[in-house]
C-alpha cells in the first residue's frame, strides 16, 4: 500500500460521489454475493459458499431500475477470476451507473464531466475527448474495415471473427490509441446486454467503450429491454461456455423478468482503479 495511491483513490472517490449527488443520482448498495455472476462467455466468476462473488453489480442495479428508480449508481468491489496483470486484478472497484431515458451520447457527456471532476480533485489536467466508431478507429490503425474483412483477412489464423477482430484490437488498435477516446458501434456479436441496430455496412451493438491513454476505462450499453432476446443470449453464452469446457452461468430469472419491465435506459460500468491510475499516469492499478 502506497500512501500516494491511497490518497489519490480517496480523493477520486469523494469527487465521484460529489458529482453523482450533484446530478441527482442515488447511491445503491447491492449484494456482493449473488446467485448468478454474469452472462458473458469470457467471464470467470469466483465461487463462494454455494454462490458467486459478483463480476459487476449490473443484474442487481437493473432490478433497481425496473423497481422504478431513474438515476442510480454503485461503487464497490467486483471479482473476476483469472484476470491478473498490470491493468487487471481479481478484485477491483467498479463504478456503475444507470439512467432511464438517457441515450449513449448523454452517457458520454456524463463521463466527460465526471472524469473532469475527478481530474481536478487529483490536480491533473482533464483530458479532452474524441468520439469515433469502431470502424473508424480499427481502419485508422490497421487499414482494414472490420465491417467487410473476414476473420482470415484480420488475423490470418483459423479462428472466429470475434477472436480475429479482438486479436487485432489488442495487438494493433489499442496500442495506437492516444488521449481520451469514446469508441462506439461494436460488432453485433459483441453486444452482451446491449441493443443491436443496423448501421451502414453492418449490424452494430448500441454500446461504447471509453479509453484513456489506451486503457479501457468503461463500457456502456443502451440496455436491452427484450426478455426473450435476453434469455436467448444467456443460452448462447452458456452453450459457448459448455463447448469451451467451462461451467455454464446460472440463468438469473429475476434479471430476465426485470429486463421486460425496464424503461429505455442506458448504463455504464467504469473501472475506478483504472480511472485513477490512468489519470495519475501510474503503470498499473496496484494499490
Amino acid at each position, binding site marked *: 500500500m502506497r500512501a500516494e495511491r491511497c490518497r489519490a483513490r480517496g480523493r477520486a472517490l469523494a469527487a465521484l460521489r460529489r458529482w453523482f449527488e450533484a446530478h441527482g443520482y442515488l447511491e445503491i448498495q447491492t449484494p456482493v454475493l449473488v446467485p448468478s455472476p454474469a452472462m458473458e462467455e469470457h467471464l470467470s466468476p469466483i465461487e463462494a459458499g454455494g454462490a458467486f462473488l459478483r463480476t459487476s453489480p449490473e443484474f442487481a442495479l437493473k432490478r433497481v431500475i425496473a423497481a422504478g428508480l431513474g438515476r442510480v449508481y454503485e461503487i464497490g468491489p467486483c471479482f473476476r477470476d483469472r*484476470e491478473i496483470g498490470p491493468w487487471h486484478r481479481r478484485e477491483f472497484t467498479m463504478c456503475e451507473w444507470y439512467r432511464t431515458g438517457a441515450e449513449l451520447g448523454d452517457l458520454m457527456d456524463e463521463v466527460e464531466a465526471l472524469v473532469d471532476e475527478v481530474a481536478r480533485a487529483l490536480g491533473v489536467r482533464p483530458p479532452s475527448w474524441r468520439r469515433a466508431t469502431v470502424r473508424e478507429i480499427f481502419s485508422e490503425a490497421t487499414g482494414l474495415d472490420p465491417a467487410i474483412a473476414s476473420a482470415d483477412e484480420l488475423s490470418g489464423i483459423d479462428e472466429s471473427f470475434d477472436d480475429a477482430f479482438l486479436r487485432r484490437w489488442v495487438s494493433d488498435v489499442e496500442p495506437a490509441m492516444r488521449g481520451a477516446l469514446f469508441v462506439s458501434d461494436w460488432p453485433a456479436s459483441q453486444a452482451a446486454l446491449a441493443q443491436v441496430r443496423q448501421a451502414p455496412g453492418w449490424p452494430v451493438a448500441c454500446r461504447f467503450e471509453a479509453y484513456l491513454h489506451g486503457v479501457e476505462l468503461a463500457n456502456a450499453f443502451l440496455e436491452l429491454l427484450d426478455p426473450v432476446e435476453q434469455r436467448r443470449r444467456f443460452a448462447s453464452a452458456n452453450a459457448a461456455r459448455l463447448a469451451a469446457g467451462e461451467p455454464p452461468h446460472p440463468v438469473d430469472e429475476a434479471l430476465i423478468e426485470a429486463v421486460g419491465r425496464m424503461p429505455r435506459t442506458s448504463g455504464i460500468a467504469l473501472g475506478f482503479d483504472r480511472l485513477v491510475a490512468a489519470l495519475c499516469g501510474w503503470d498499473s492499478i496496484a494499490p
Partner: protein
Amino acid sequence: MYQTSDIRNGLKVEIDGQPYIVTYFQFVKPGKGQAFTRTKLKNLLSGNVLDRTFKTGETLQPADITEGTHQYLYSDGEAFHFMNMETFDQLELTPESVGDARNFLVEEMEVSLMFYKDRPVSVDLPNFVELEITYCEPGVKGNTAQGATKSATLSTGHTVNVPLFIEQGEWVKVDTRTGDYVERVRR
C-alpha cells in the same frame, strides 16, 4: 508445451523454426471478449523483435535452449574465444552473437553462454562488472556535485559517463544491462 499463463520475461520459445526470448508481456482482456497476452519476442539468432499476441488457450513450443558457464579467453579480431568451465572445451563466437556484450567483456571473465540446438548464440553477462578506466580527463578534487559527469574510456574500448572525481587508472563498477556507471571500486 507452454500455456499462455506460463509466459514471463526470459521464457524461450520456438516460433516458425526460430528461437525467441520473451522480453515483455502483458495480460489484456477486452471488456467483452477472450483474454490475450500481448508479447514482445526477441529473436535469439537475429536480434529482431517480434510483436505477437496469444489468445488464452493457445500453446507455445519451448525452444531447444541450453546454457552453461564459460570463461572468456580472448578475441582474435574475427572471433571471440570462450572455454567451458566444466569440460574445458574451447569454442568461438561471431561478433554478431556476442553483440553488445563485447563492450564489457574482459579476459578471464565468467559469463553464461546460450546455445540453440547446441550452437552458441548469445552471451549473458553478470549484471555488474568491474572495469578499469584507461582514459579520462583529470579528476576534479572535492567535486562530488550530483549529476555532473564526464566521458571515460573502459579497458574494453567502450565509453561510459562517470562522476568528475574519477581518475584514469581507477576501477569502476558498471551495470551491464543499462551501461551505466554504478560506483568506484578499490583494487
